[in-house]
């Protein structure tokens, strides 16, 4: 009985540790994004307008770019390390969906723009479409 209880606690502890490892990585990435977003919002020139060029100090632009590069590269690698193989497959598939949305979205938008039907392709909208595509794919693969 005691042995059974110990085994019981052991698997529960391992499951909690596993989830904690994932939460730590996701939480750290979320915090980095939150701090960068707060700093950009805090130092943004209100006169320049939303999403305008030259609206934050160069030091903040460079440091944010470096932080994003390191956080996303290291975070993605770390997330893959703490995830199990099923989660890794889902992450890979969602990344492929995001990439395809952008790879298909840009030329489609480009030729429509060449035809004078739509405004010039916008990188931010394409990026957002990729993110939304990956979120839908993640929900589909995770919850179906």
């Amino acid at each position, binding site marked *: 009985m005691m042995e059974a209880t110990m085994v019981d606690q052991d698997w*529960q502890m391992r*499951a909690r540790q596993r989830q904690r490892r994932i939460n730590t990585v996701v939480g750290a990435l979320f915090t980095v994004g939150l701090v960068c977003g707060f700093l950009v919002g805090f130092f943004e020139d209100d006169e320049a307008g939303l999403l305008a060029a030259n609206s934050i100090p160069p030091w903040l632009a460079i440091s944010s770019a470096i932080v994003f590069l390191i956080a996303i590269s290291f975070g993605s690698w770390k997330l893959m390390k703490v995830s199990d193989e099923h989660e890794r497959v889902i992450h890979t598939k969602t990344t492929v969906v995001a990439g395809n949305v952008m790879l298909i979205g840009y030329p489609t938008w480009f030729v429509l723009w060449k035809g004078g039907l739509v405004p010039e392709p916008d990188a931010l909208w394409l990026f957002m479409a990729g993110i939304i595509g990956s979120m839908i794919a993640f929900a589909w693969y*995770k919850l179906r």
Partner: protein
Amino acid sequence: MKNRLKVLRAERDWSQAELGARLDVSRQAINAIETGKYDPSLPLAFRIARLFGMTIEEIFDDGGDHG
């Protein structure tokens, strides 16, 4: 791919979360394998077989003719 994971787990009165922890994978991974939505890798299939003291073929059935 069909498998007997759900039956084998039930025989031992393990939850999906418990089996997942024993195999160091998530509860969702066990659910996906049991429902046939995800085929485990060969290393995970070996871990499952070892845990239940069986061969991979005794747990997983690819529907092929093994004769």
